[in-house]
């Protein structure tokens, strides 16, 4: 099965490749995405197309000479969980987790779900450059390096403007959850 989604004159095609298995290659970083990512939701809370979000994150990983693997979780939209479980599936033990509204983190397999390596909780502040930097840093952790964290942004007025909208986006994303489904391996095609 594959789905095609219109994203600002570009098509992101996410092709399902079966149930995601635990990887064995230490040079891979899993990008773990949420149930509605690229399906019913096609851009972040500040209207960055999710196609761009993916391309930048993947490019960041590739710049460090590593490979990215794309995995969709359908049984949870919780960022800590999908990031942590993505890391468990990753051959390197490192993942980037991204929700459809754009909230992201870098996770490691042996941490608790609510802990993480780097967290980017304010989705409205994440632009394309940040997603590339996140991919790059994730790859560095995967190589055993100890990178300086991606500069943390803080806008105290992000919550007043966006929190209610973020809640509605998450409620809508949660409607795509199917607790019976295993995580799925995806291949992304950008046209």
């Amino acid at each position, binding site marked *: 099965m594959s789905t095609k989604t219109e994203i600002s004159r570009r098509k992101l095609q996410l092709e399902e490749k079966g149930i995601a298995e635990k990887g064995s290659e230490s040079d891979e970083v899993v990008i773990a995405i949420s149930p509605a990512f690229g399906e019913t939701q096609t851009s972040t809370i500040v209207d960055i197309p999710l196609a761009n979000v993916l391309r930048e994150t993947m490019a960041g990983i590739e710049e460090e000479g590593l490979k990215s693997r794309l995995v969709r979780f359908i049984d949870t939209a919780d960022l800590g969980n999908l990031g942590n479980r993505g890391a468990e599936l990753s051959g390197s033990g490192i993942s980037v987790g991204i929700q459809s509204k754009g909230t992201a983190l870098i996770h490691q397999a042996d941490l608790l779900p609510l*802990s993480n390596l780097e*967290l980017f909780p304010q989705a409205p502040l994440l632009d394309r450059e940040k997603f590339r930097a996140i991919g790059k840093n994730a790859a560095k952790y995967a190589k055993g390096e100890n990178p*300086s964290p991606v500069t943390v942004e*803080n806008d105290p007025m992000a*919550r007043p*403007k966006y929190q209610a*909208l973020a*809640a509605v986006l998450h409620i809508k994303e949660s409607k795509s959850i199917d607790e019976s489904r295993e995580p799925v391996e995806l291949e992304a095609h950008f046209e």
Partner: protein
Amino acid sequence: MSEREEGEVENADTKQHKRSNRFKSLDEKPVNQDGFAKEWPEEGLIAMDSPNDPDPSVTVKEGEIVEMDGKQREDFDFIDFFIADYAINVEKAEEALAIDSVEFAQRLVDINIAREDIIELTTAMTPAKLAEVVNQMNTLEMMMALQKMRARKTPGNQGHCTSVKDHPVQIAADAAEAALRGFDEIETTVGVARYAPFNALAQQLGSQAGRGGVLTQCAVEEATELELGMKGLTTYAETVSVYGTESVFKDGDDTPWSKAFLASGYASRGLKMRFTSGSGSEVNMGQAEGKSMVYLESRCVLVTKGCGVQGLQNGGISCIAIPSAVPSGIRGVLAENLITTMVDLEVASGNDQTFSHSHKRQMARTFPQLVAGTDLIFSGYSTMPNYDDMFAGSNFDSYDYDDYNVVQRDLKVDGGLKPIAEEDAIAVRNTAARAIQVVFRELGFPQITDEEVEAATYGDGSDDMPDRDQAADLKAAEELMEGDITGLDIVEILADHGFDDLAENMLNMLKQRISGDYLHTSAVIDGEFNVTSGVNDRNDYQGPGTGYRMSEERWEEIKDIRHAFDPEEV
């Protein structure tokens, strides 16, 4: 795409209409930068009194609640079970539920009825009953009730102390100034999670340089937070979250029982702790089951009570922009503060997070708790500029200190802070910065330069601070977390290097962990290390002439703002 196209058509339309200059001006006002939403009861996007909230009811058989809020015991979810078995005074439950909710709301407001006369009934109510009682009250009535129902007579305040750079010297200096300004408690959190032990250390050391007795916590992942406390780098904990629906609990791999277990971990090690909840968290996670925020919050309050924890921070907290986006939402967060006091818990009453661009709205949201007084009016006033507030910004920050001091003076109300002299602030900031410099040097952590000490002494925020080698700091922070260093080692270093007062204050805070007096409900510690709590400072408000009245000494402090002229010298 169809939505976007409709939007474009609308924009085209508005271009054709001639606009009112007044409405154009209004559109540019800060309040219209805020996010507002219409109610969506099916998903719980409603502050109070959802059509899906259950009607209150209770049936007790042989000392056990067998039916509650319209549900038979066999249909209970795990929150219902926990509340029914541990949180409600079963003996009084049927009596409390039989009282008409309007009549009970009147008793809450009535100054002739003392707190101690109704607390045995308010602690016997089911979640739906608590929600139904507060639903009857308007904002002013809730303020009256809050003034009477809070556990400790003397109100207090709590601050945030963070840095967008996680800069330890800045955190130490800000903690010192915050302590001097009167905060009973301050809390830090992190930009990068692995900085937690440094932030905790810097904050505790700094706070004790400003005033002995200030309680500190580091809000991070729950197990890490407990470990920091056990190392003696914090003295209380707050970030143990509880939720009003079973599915949100499950998402965090938690149950009320696991939270109770964690709570006992803190208590057994002599650490004060309260839970965290607050309107909007269930909606935020898309799992509100169509119930109102205040009803779900009343379940959180009772889960907290059932865990045997002394207090709760609520009032929206990190999800405040959700209740405040819907009608009656600010009244709703006041209602949840009130419910917390009705259940005989300490309340740290929110006001801690940004929810509005409008200064008028910011003040209006804080007014009820400030005027009524709560155990901790803010559960996080930003003690530095909001751009450094890693709780994503507070409703008030360091730029509002003088506004806050003047409002206390205008209304003769005790908001827990006081004006301070510039030279005193500089002095305590410098002591804290020099002390953390010595501690880092003696522990072999990355060097703190004299330039950093100077910057933190005179600085305003992290923009004034030199950048540090974060990768090196994080490596050392990890060593601190994994090693054997405790608060006692810090005391020794300080004592060996001439910081005698600071060392003694730090040691006294460690001693509190053994005596445990500050585990009582609503406990705070004064500058002489005396514990004030809901036990030895019971709230006896019953109208004018009773309850908390400002002492002459305290009034002198509040009156003494920096810029008042002296008429005799004019």
